[in-house]
């Protein structure tokens, strides 16, 4: 597992440091007022410039003998990073004022909230829809849910988000304001938003959770309302995918002989479907959960941009624009960590559900 993280960090590192001019490596650590000599010593300290490099100009023009080979640079970077030094952020507007680490983790809870909400929606809608589809094969509920499922994973997320915004902000208007807010995790204007939800104390960083813990239900409601459109947009594709998987594996399972036996024992239909069929049918769905988590985290980038959601996805684009590599590295590594952990959890879950795997 750790191997994956290392490999990824190496991949990104080589990709970026290798293809970009060496002086960009200094950007996160630099204080704009230091002179060339200061820059050169900084470059040496970071492990990018060799000790024998004569001047900053030579270094900046990448004269031979001045640049440490990439694996050496990686080592220098790694040492910095492992001690928690990710440099200062380059994001426009706050460049140099905060560390990459703090900027990332102050924005991350919003992305997490969005992803978790989307995950909950995916499971809560995808599984029942798939079951209904399989048990009413070729009848109206099946056709309807296949259309939803198909539409779900064919639709461009940014378009769907925009469509929802147009519908609920522009067209469905109550008292002059759109029904739901167009942007942001905190309310701007919307018809069902509360005018002044008040303050919350930060326990976990997740706004909705903190609102509950602070017993500020007005804030909770506003957060929920703001979360509605973005989370539906993010979830739509994975709902489509999950419904399809559950449907096809349920159909497979329902054809099995042990379902016939279960029915012949006089068990109630609901018991046959949930205890016998579904338990066998979720196995393929569980296997694919790691991919779904990856998909949600990736899709968050697009959704955050469409809805101006103050999460890391939004910031990552700005970071890419200004070549804030440390930010992107951190983003990639955190996401990879989450996905790898999810896969581990999935493996454990799998062996709990299917006793044949344990042996």
């Amino acid at each position, binding site marked *: 597992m750790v191997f994956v993280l290392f490999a990824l960090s190496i991949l990104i590192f080589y990709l970026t440091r290798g293809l970009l001019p060496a002086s960009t490596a200094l950007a996160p650590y630099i204080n704009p007022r230091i002179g060339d000599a200061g820059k050169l010593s900084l470059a040496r300290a970071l492990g990018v410039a060799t000790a024998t490099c004569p001047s900053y100009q030579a270094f900046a023009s990448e004269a031979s003998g001045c640049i440490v080979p990439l694996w050496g640079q990686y080592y220098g970077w790694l040492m910095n990073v492992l001690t928690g030094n990710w440099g200062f952020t380059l994001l426009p507007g706050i460049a140099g004022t905060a560390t990459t680490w703090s900027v990332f983790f102050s924005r991350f809870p919003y992305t997490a909230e969005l992803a978790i909400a989307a995950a909950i929606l995916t499971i809560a809608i995808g599984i029942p829809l798939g079951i209904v589809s399989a048990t009413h094969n070729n009848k109206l509920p099946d056709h309807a849910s296949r259309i939803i499922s198909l539409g779900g994973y064919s639709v461009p997320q940014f378009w769907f988000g925009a469509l929802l915004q147009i519908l609920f902000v522009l067209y469905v208007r109550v008292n002059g304001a759109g029904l739901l807010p167009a942007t942001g995790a905190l309310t701007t204007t919307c018809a069902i938003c509360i005018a002044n939800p008040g303050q919350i104390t930060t326990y976990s960083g997740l706004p909705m959770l903190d609102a509950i813990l602070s017993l500020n239900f007005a804030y909770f409601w506003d957060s929920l309302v703001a979360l509605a459109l973005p989370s539906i947009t993010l979830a739509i594709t994975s709902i489509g995918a999950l419904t399809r998987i559950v449907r096809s594996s349920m159909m497979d399972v329902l054809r*099995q*002989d*042990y379902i*016939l*036996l*279960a*029915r*012949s*024992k*006089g*068990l*109630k*239909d609901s*018991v046959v479907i949930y*205890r*016998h069929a579904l*338990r*066998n049918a979720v196995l393929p769905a569980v296997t694919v959960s790691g991919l779904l988590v990856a998909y949600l985290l990736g899709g968050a980038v697009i959704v955050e941009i469409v809805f101006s959601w103050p999460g890391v996805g939004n910031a990552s684009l700005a970071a890419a624009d200004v070549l804030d590599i440390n930010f992107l590295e951190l983003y990639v590594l955190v996401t990879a960590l989450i996905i790898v952990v999810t896969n581990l959890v999935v493996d454990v879950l799998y062996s709990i*559900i*299917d*006793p*044949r795997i344990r042996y």
Partner: protein
Amino acid sequence: MNTKKPVRPQNVLTVKNLKVTFHTYAGDVKALDGVELSVKKGELLGLVGESGCGKSVTTLAIVGLLPANAEIVSGEVLLDGTNLLEMKKDDLRLIRLKDVAIIFQDPMTYLNPILSIGSQITEIIATDPELFIQKLIETRLNQIEAMQASPSGLDNESQAERERLRYASNGNRLGRKDLKRLTRLYAISILNSVRLPEPEKVFKMFPFELSGGMRQRAMIAMALVRRPKLILADEMTTALDVTVQAQTLQLLQQLKNTVDTSVLLITHDLAVVAEVCDRVAVMYAGNVVEVADVEELFKNPLHPYTQGLLASVPRIDVAVKDQTSIKGSVPDLIYPPSGCRFHPRCPRAFEKCPVAKPTLFEVSPGHHVSCFLYGE
């Protein structure tokens, strides 16, 4: 030879003129064409026939578990007088729970692989605990009495339990924990009665951990726990080794006597029939063509198909080239032969056979045939 109990005259099951058609892409398969069958109370009726003659379809039709593309065109299925085909789905489910149990052919595919054996038995009881509660209490009380008789006597816990159970057996409420424990103990006792070694361990095991014979016994246990009026055993022993087969059949016979149930044993193996059955029915291409007591059938087969069947059993004293078989092959049920479905292969067919359809009638006491050779 088998020990026979004197059979009482009423019928547990009567199937009258059952016609079932399957609608498929290739056409309408007329699988059952007027099946007539009856199982007397307490007997073991064998149902013989080649693969594809409609034996399994009959079983599924009886309990209402035919697939979606099947249509029951006509007929009656009377279980102790009630027509199952006219029942509502929920009532039919209760019949499956209480009265009619099916034991299927291949225990590997018919057992849910991710649920333990024990839970696949206890879920039956959990479906409607009221039905089973007397039996549960009775079994546990007997166990406690046995414990009392033993040298160590009865400890306080069991005494308290006995009081609670006696209270509950008068129609009063039984606690949830008690119910769970009773269910488990009852399931284990059933596993014991089908001669599974170490039943407490088997209770927790999963199907893939058991051998074929053990799995089949577990299936029998699932049938027995309900104490049904009728057991439909669909090729129960076909997937088993010969020695295990013999043991399983023996078990079935013993249980039939102790639990007082009737059995419809479906098989294509005549040796099995000869071993355990009281009466036999022979099926061909969706019709029952002959019914008789076992000895009578083997001594005096009347229908040409039965005769051909018995004659084609390989014998050790007859050379391979001299073996007889029934010429031709099983008919296409989408376009079945007209009149008697056996006539294209029948060595004694005559003018009437392709024209009219014969029905079962009694030739001698207890011996029915469906063939124009014997009248009608």
